[in-house]
């Protein structure tokens, strides 16, 4: 039993590797199933959306964060609380548009791509596109329609990974017909 002592592994780190590897297996499967990268990107976004609409509940329940007053506050919560909680990273928020309806998240080290190299024939694949769907889905559940896309990606040779978020509109609560 003396060996037990050197079997100390950082279980939290391993858990994020489990996530990374599972995500990798999913992307691999999608690339097999679909003929072109566009379709894979679309599918990843759709799956991310499904995750987002459920993840927001987990997030609100655990973070006890209330409604955001403006888009700047939203940006802060996403970067400093949500990304930290779920991916263990804190992206920086930059490149605000003058109107304050658009900003960028700069990801220093994207945990989804930890063990990834894109082969040459997948140059248009947006590997981490799931994240866009997650952000879009989660924000939609708190009445915000937002456009999310990758502007830069280190996997495709850019210097940084940048997610661009643009506020489209506030979604009005639909009262059921006849309900005053």
């Amino acid at each position, binding site marked *: 039993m003396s060996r037990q002592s*050197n079997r100390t592994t950082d*279980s939290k*780190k391993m*858990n994020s590797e*489990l996530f990374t590897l*599972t995500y990798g297996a999913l992307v691999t499967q999608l690339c097999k199933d679909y003929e072109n990268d566009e379709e894979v990107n679309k599918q990843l976004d759709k799956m991310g959306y499904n995750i987002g609409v459920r993840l927001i509940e987990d997030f609100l329940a655990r973070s006890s964060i209330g409604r955001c007053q403006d888009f700047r506050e939203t940006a802060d919560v996403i970067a400093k609380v949500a990304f930290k909680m*779920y991916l*263990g990273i804190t992206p920086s928020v930059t490149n605000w548009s003058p109107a304050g309806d658009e900003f960028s998240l700069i990801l220093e080290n994207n945990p989804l791509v930890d*063990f990834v190299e894109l082969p040459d024939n997948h140059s248009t694949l947006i590997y981490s596109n799931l994240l866009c769907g997650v952000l879009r889905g989660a924000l939609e559940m708190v009445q915000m329609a937002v456009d999310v896309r990758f502007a830069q990606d280190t996997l495709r040779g850019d210097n940084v990974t940048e997610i661009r978020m643009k506020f489209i509109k506030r979604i009005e609560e639909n009262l059921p017909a006849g309900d005053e």
Partner: protein
Amino acid sequence: MADEAPFQFLHNEVMQYIYKSAENGETENGRNIAKLENMGFRVGQGLIERLTKDTARFKDELDIMKFICKDFWTCVFKKQIDNLRTNHQGIYVLQDNKFRLLSQLSAGKQYLEHAPKYLAFTCGLVRGALSNLGVKSIVTAEVSVMPACKFQVMIQKI
């Protein structure tokens, strides 16, 4: 550090995807299970590589199984296997009384028919992990009352 919620949600989506993509085709249930299992296999291979990086060589098969029950399970599901039994002829039964991927689902017989979907990926995980430790195996799972489940590992003698 990364939280477990993303993995659970991702696992759900992976499952949904595999089953939905089969709806419009001719594929039957077995193929889907196999697909999920194969994805798990690949992940298990990767994980065990990372996990055993600094561990000493294993003494024997039982030692490997113990490692799977303790360290591997703790790393993936945040708890150890509750019970490990073997007939000393290459069959091991790993019992988890509160399997993480089922515990949100039900505590009884409700949805029992859906349980296999939630286990296939994990069967692959175990098989992949064992495979990279040089043990060829067949892993199956069974559930009688959720969230408890048993994984049976049959070692293939070469």
